[in-house]
């Protein structure tokens, strides 16, 4: 598979603090590539550099064969982008948002109408085309943004936290579109997420923490690193239990959020042995297959935390309710 994104020692400093510390990787054409990491790990900074919105401090990258510093307009023409925060004009209709997008991307008038129909159809918003965007729900706005990002037939679609703040049903819906796009259009999809279950959809995942790439591989291979099974238990005294497990079974138990997690081979045989041999009082114990959360835990010793609606989204909803009052 030919590569479509090539990143070499890309770095970004903000006033002496390095947000991205010289990362290198490549993305193949037609794959879903996921950038996984906690908040503030450098995901959005990396995406902003690849989309030419931020100038890197050092290093280089090409997107679709174009240099992100020397050939910015060509990069922009060949990518579609769905931002973490909505970027629609709420005082325009869905149709107008798409029309203006088509215009600034230089799509000829005759072609424009056809493409608008096409993408609205894809995200099932044809019936709402003449409605103001401010009447749309969060999920509809995100779908409209995906439609807009696809209108100029980009070669790479960047999705920055595409399902952040959406309900599970809408998330599922949006993933359906993403998968269909990859299959039907041969589109390359580059997305960032901190939802573990979403990362499972990706062909390959790069795990980023503190501005550094700490792993890059398929979800399956990443999980194999962890071991074949994970046992999670809660003891009366987790610290003592961890020491005991280490001494008797030579297995390291990590304590996170009041739980001990053990990465083992053949867990179904290990568990009975553990129950029999352990003197510490255990209140619960479970066996499961490893997830990407375990991979992240294994690599960093921490969990990726769930993100709440914060920052701009809050300001926005406050401003909106204020405006409504004024009317």
């Amino acid at each position, binding site marked *: 598979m030919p590569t479509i994104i090539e990143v070499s020692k890309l770095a970004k400093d903000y006033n002496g603090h390095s947000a991205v510390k010289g990362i290198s990787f490549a993305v193949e054409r037609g794959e879903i590539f996921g950038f996984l990491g906690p908040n503030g790990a450098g995901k959005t900074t990396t995406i902003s550099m690849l989309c030419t919105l931020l100038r890197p401090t050092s290093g280089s990258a090409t997107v679709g064969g174009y240099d992100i510093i020397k050939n910015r*307009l060509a990069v922009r023409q060949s990518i579609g982008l769905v931002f973490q925060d909505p*970027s629609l004009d709420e005082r*325009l209709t869905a149709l107008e948002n798409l029309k203006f997008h088509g215009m600034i*991307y*230089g799509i000829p008038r005759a072609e424009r109408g056809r493409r608008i129909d096409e993408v609205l159809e894809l995200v099932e918003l044809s019936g709402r085309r003449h409605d103001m965007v401010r009447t749309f729900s969060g999920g509809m706005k995100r779908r409209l943004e995906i439609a*807009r990002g696809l209108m100029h037939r980009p070669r790479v679609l960047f999705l920055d936290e595409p399902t952040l703040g959406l309900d599970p049903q809408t998330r599922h819906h949006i993933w359906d579109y993403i998968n269909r796009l990859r299959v039907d259009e041969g589109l390359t999809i580059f997305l960032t997420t901190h939802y573990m279950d979403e990362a499972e959809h990706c062909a390959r995942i790069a795990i980023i923490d503190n501005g550094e790439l700490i792993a890059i591989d398929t979800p399956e291979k990443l999980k194999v690193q962890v071991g074949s099974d994970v046992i999670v238990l809660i003891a009366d005294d987790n610290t003592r239990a961890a020491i005991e497990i280490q001494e008797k079974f030579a297995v390291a138990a990590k304590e996170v959020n009041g739980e001990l997690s053990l990465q083992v081979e053949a867990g179904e045989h290990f568990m009975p042995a553990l129950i029999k041999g352990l003197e510490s009082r255990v209140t619960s114990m479970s066996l499961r297959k490893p997830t990407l959360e375990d991979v992240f835990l294994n690599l960093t010793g921490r969990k990726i935390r769930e993100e709440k609606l914060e920052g*701009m989204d809050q300001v*926005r909803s406050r401003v909106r309710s204020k405006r409504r009052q004024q009317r």
Partner: protein
Amino acid sequence: MKAAMMGIYTLWLRDITRFVRDKPRIISSSVQPLLWLFVLGLGLSTAFVRGGGDNDYMRFIYPGIISMSVLFTSIFSAVSIIWDREFGFLKEVLVAPIPRWSVAVGRALGGSTVAVLQGTIILVVAPLVGVSFTFSQLALAFLIMFMIAFSMTSFGILIAARMHTHEGFQVVVNFILLPMFFLSGAMFPVSEGLPAWMQALVRINPLSYGVDALRQTLVGIKINSIWLDLSVVAGFGAFALIMAVWYFEKHE
């Protein structure tokens, strides 16, 4: 170049689309200047008549009120860039394959067109103020309105590009917009009788020249030659636009 032209046109069209749709905004931003003109203007003109002046105060402030309407609309629509930034739309534009300068120019043209339309609403009430004009006066008035609008919108974009929160908006109104308006000769004569410091501020205020140009075109009262007026307004507009574009290219 084609991409840049399309970018300018698109951003212009967006401003117009939003303006035409927002009827409450058109009405509310027309009411204010009409209040100034008919309530404050009529009220003060009786005071001036008692003070021994002639009854021409309404005629005198009429071009000033048009300038006010153009000035306020220009600055407000330019400063809406801050909203675009906060609500994300600016990002969509900045990541599009059009040069940054075309974004600034498109906004400047869109904002100034809207401002001219607002000014036109005040122009319509001319007969009520006792002002009449020929077609060529009207054409010249439109040109001057557009020049004022374009230079003030560019100036507003320059301010907005440097301002990152909407909290700063009140600062703009109090420290830039109102002083500019009060010191422009829109509401009272500035040719003589003012303290020296005030006279100096009037002279360095580019809007004074726009007001003077509009006033001599519509009601025939003048301080400077029309050429000086137009040159200052155009020069200031060009300067503000170049600065705004430069700032936009560098910082957005």
